[in-house]
């Protein structure tokens, strides 16, 4: 009876047994009905705002993998960037969207952690020296369940609207793996919402999605990481300069 293949199989929540705060920070976190609904309302509401107020346009949506896990990388010039990225995703995959957010900003206080975990569905990532810490866990999640990470490889928001160079952290995450990385360029977010301003201006916004890349052959060392960061930065920059030209390479 014990080996009967037709027996019921229980798969408890992957984060079962963690105290509330540890659960919110856990990469194994699984959402219930409350956070799933709150999140859907949050992202869809913002998506509607950007589409109407900022006439958000999405170019190259056909490049998005139709299923499975992948990582979106983009330039980061405004708080609106993350909303623009979710708006670019098809509705049915929005539940899998997980922004990788700075631990020191979004996960420092219980209230903010609650918001980041339950509304944004964010996961904490360390910045600077400890950046590799927790990458194994973050990669593991991609395999456990369909997950779409959003990551801004520059590691910080540009304060003047200029393009900040990508850091090698993204390389450490994906070097020598099968993980697909989708470069995206966000245009107009800085004009719509600058630092220190509260109101969103009706500036036109465009998200351009490029062809996915896989870095299976890149070595998992400093050279490989730097090369990956450079390749992705070039991709994103190219998307920004020529938003209408599709790049059929790869």
């Amino acid at each position, binding site marked *: 009876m014990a080996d009967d293949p037709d027996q*019921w*199989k*229980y*798969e*408890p*929540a992957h984060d*079962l*047994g*963690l*105290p*509330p705060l540890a659960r919110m920070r856990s990469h194994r976190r*699984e959402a*219930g*009905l409350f956070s*799933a609904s709150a999140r859907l309302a949050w992202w869809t509401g913002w998506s509607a705002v950007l589409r109407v107020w900022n006439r958000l346009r999405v170019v190259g949506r056909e490049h998005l993998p139709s299923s499975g896990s992948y990582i979106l990388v983009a330039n980061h010039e405004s708080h609106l960037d993350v909303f623009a990225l979710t708006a670019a995703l098809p509705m049915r995959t929005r539940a899998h969207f997980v922004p990788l957010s700075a631990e020191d900003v979004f996960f420092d206080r219980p209230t903010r952690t609650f918001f980041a975990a339950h509304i944004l569905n964010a996961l904490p990532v360390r910045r600077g020296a400890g950046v590799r810490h927790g990458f194994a866990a973050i990669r593991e999640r991609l395999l456990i369940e369909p997950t779409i990470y959003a990551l801004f490889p520059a590691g910080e928001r540009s304060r003047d609207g200029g393009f900040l160079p990508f850091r090698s952290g993204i390389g450490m995450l994906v070097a020598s793996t099968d993980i697909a990385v989708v470069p995206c360029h966000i245009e107009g977010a800085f004009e719509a919402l600058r630092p220190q301003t509260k109101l969103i201006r009706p500036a036109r916004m465009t998200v351009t999605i490029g062809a996915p890349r896989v870095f299976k052959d890149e070595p998992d060392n400093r050279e490989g990481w730097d090369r990956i960061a450079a390749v992705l930065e070039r991709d994103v920059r190219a998307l920004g300069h020529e938003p209408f030209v599709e790049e059929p390479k790869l």
Partner: protein
Amino acid sequence: MTVQHLFTVSDAFDDPLVVWSTAVACALLVVAFAAIQVLRRLGVTAPELHRELMVRTISWSWLLAIIGAAILLGRGTTILAVLVLSLLAYRDFARATGVFRVRSLSIVVTLGMIALACASADRWHRLYFALTPLVIVLLAVITIPRDEPRGFVQRVGLAIMGFVLFGTALGYLGLLTDTPRYRALLIFLIAAIQLNDIFAFIVGRTLGGPKLIPNTSSGKTISGSVGAVILTTILVVVLGRFLFADTLMGSWTTLIGLGVASSIAGQLGDLGLSSIKRDIGIKDFAAAIPGHGGVLDRFDSLILVPPVLYHIISFVNGPLGG
């Protein structure tokens, strides 16, 4: 106004039993904290144990404050608190069994529990009873369009079990607010069930002896179980003589029956939830309440008692809710 009966606070302390039980609950907390501090000063409890005791007692204070406030503030808040308890209990159950991943079932269960609460609030007992089969039918059909026959019986079975145990059975607490002295009744119900657990623990520890059902719950003994039935029945008879004075429920034989049935239902709730945990292979349902585990770990023995109490009262005193 028809909703006035939901939010009447002014009569909270009209019932002397409510005054007394509130005073006793507050006194118990003060005594508990004082005892913990004294034991610490005397060096009886090690720092580790002291911290554990403090965490548990602080959690208890919060639970008592929430339960007490909900019951004292009136029927509306009591029913709302029962609804929240139902939802949290189902959440623990669904996360442990994995059925929470099927969103459509969670939505139906949630709406069903809200409907039960509305039926309680409206004193519409017939709707309450009709909702259980209706929701079960809806749960049975809602996942058909997914076109995933694999695991169909499991997910539907789990959702129905969750709804009936934590929605219907626990929801009777809300329906019981449609009795004249519901505040005292609910306070006594909760107190008797918690004491039932404590009686079983103390008698079992003192007398020892053979285990009750060791595969399900390793700690429970036959002596503890029988001891709890006897002591809880005595408690129910003594309290019931005050609570049900001047009604048919107040007779000795009825109260003895009520005591025995409540004690057994309390223990079965505890053991039933233990069976679920053993089957899945987990120790606790969650870790939401510091020192106690999940909501379901704390309130497991409360789940099966409300329907027993309701139907005995309804049978003896005449149907509730017209």
